[in-house]
């Protein structure tokens, strides 16, 4: 079940091969949905699900796909999965679907999906592909949550919508930093995380 190689597929993306920090994939949605914590978590869960299943499907049909149109095939699979997920959400959990609204579309354009389908699912059996999908989804979610944590805390003074910065701070002149809410601060936060990550993992540093 979990051979050494499979373990690598599952756990490497959490840190050493993180899709956001190391592969620099999925940056656009990292900017878009991290203004507060809740959408970041929901987006993370949705990406984990779609990534795992599209990896499995592509891996199952990988021997039949003509190489010249493989990108189109991958895109169709991802888009179909996303639409199916959306339809089920609207029918069974309407509230969640309202929160997800735009993120569903963002999943289709998430570079992590195409990246993993190209790099992994096309050359591997379904089970490792499934683990790779879960691992990369988790790695992506982790970064999203960290960025959203700082942006929501410093930008709005809340976490998951609850006020955490006590009122006396505001009384003494503390102000929420409105800049944190804006997309550029997401880039800077991600850059800081990459900085810390590379400082701790010397082998990832480029030498030139």
């Amino acid at each position, binding site marked *: 079940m979990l051979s050494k190689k499979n373990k690598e597929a599952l756990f490497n993306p959490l840190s050493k091969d993180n899709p956001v920090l190391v592969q620099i994939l999925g940056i656009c949605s990292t900017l878009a949905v991290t203004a507060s914590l809740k959408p970041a978590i929901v987006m993370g869960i949705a990406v984990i699900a779609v990534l795992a299943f599209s990896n499995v499907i592509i891996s199952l049909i990988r021997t039949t796909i003509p190489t010249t*149109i493989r990108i189109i095939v991958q895109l169709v699979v991802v888009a179909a999965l996303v639409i199916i997920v959306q339809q089920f959400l609207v029918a069974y959990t309407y509230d969640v679907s309202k929160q997800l609204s735009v993120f569903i579309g963002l999943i289709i354009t998430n570079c992590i999906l195409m990246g993993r389908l190209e790099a992994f699912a096309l050359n591997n059996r379904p089970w490792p592909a499934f683990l790779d999908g879960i691992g990369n989804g988790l790695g992506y979610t982790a970064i999203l949550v960290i960025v959203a944590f700082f942006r929501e805390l410093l930008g709005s003074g809340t976490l998951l919508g609850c006020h955490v910065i006590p009122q006396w701070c505001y009384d003494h002149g503390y102000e929420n930093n409105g800049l944190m809410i804006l997309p550029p601060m997401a880039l800077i936060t991600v850059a800081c995380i990459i900085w810390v990550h590379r400082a701790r993992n010397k082998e990832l540093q480029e030498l030139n």
Partner: protein
Amino acid sequence: MNKNSNIYQIVYASVMVLVVGVALAFIYMALKPKQDVNIANDKRSQILASLHIVAPSEGELPATYEKYVTRDLLVDREGNIVDSTRNVAFEVDMKKNIKLAEADRQLPVLECTLDDGSKKYVIPVRGAGLWGPIWGFVAVDADGSTIYGANFSHEGETPGLGARITEDEFQQQFAGKQVFKEGAFKSVSVMKKGQVPSNGSDHVDAISGATITSRGVGAMMQTCIAPYEPFLKKLSGATANPS
């Protein structure tokens, strides 16, 4: 078989599109009835939210709605009631309605009776945000001027920015504002914090970082409530001199 021959590719692509298309159509058809129920219930809960009413549970939502929303009205541009069949106002599709020329638009109003017997009039509004449509329901007191409550929704505004129009903090600002100032219709403006509208209308604070969505809310309140001016005036006349 040669996987890169033209025939194989064309057949592969066609079969794939057919399979996916049929599967999606089937799923859509199978889930449609359930989705329609959800969407109608969501509209009911938005209408109730503008009256500060929350149904005790999802199952009781239709019953709660029936209890409080006592009459459906369609009014004309002179403020006369032209139709009051049950659900006639509820079923007006605002998405289509707003696309019609202004003179052809239907003007639905939901007459609601609260627990204390007071009457509120809920007016649906719809407009454009930054990325897509925004809409909402505005409940007006029986005096035809004081806003009792407002509820806004959106399709795809930026989470954490424009999407915050759905939050209580923003919506609660509308309660108590007047849409008439000294007898003239002046819709509630949405202004940047600290600024005051030049026409002397009541105003609420915009959401910082979401200028276009905030403006959209202001514009939507203006354009969608303005046609109701005669109706609202009649309301205020009726409460001022009960006859």
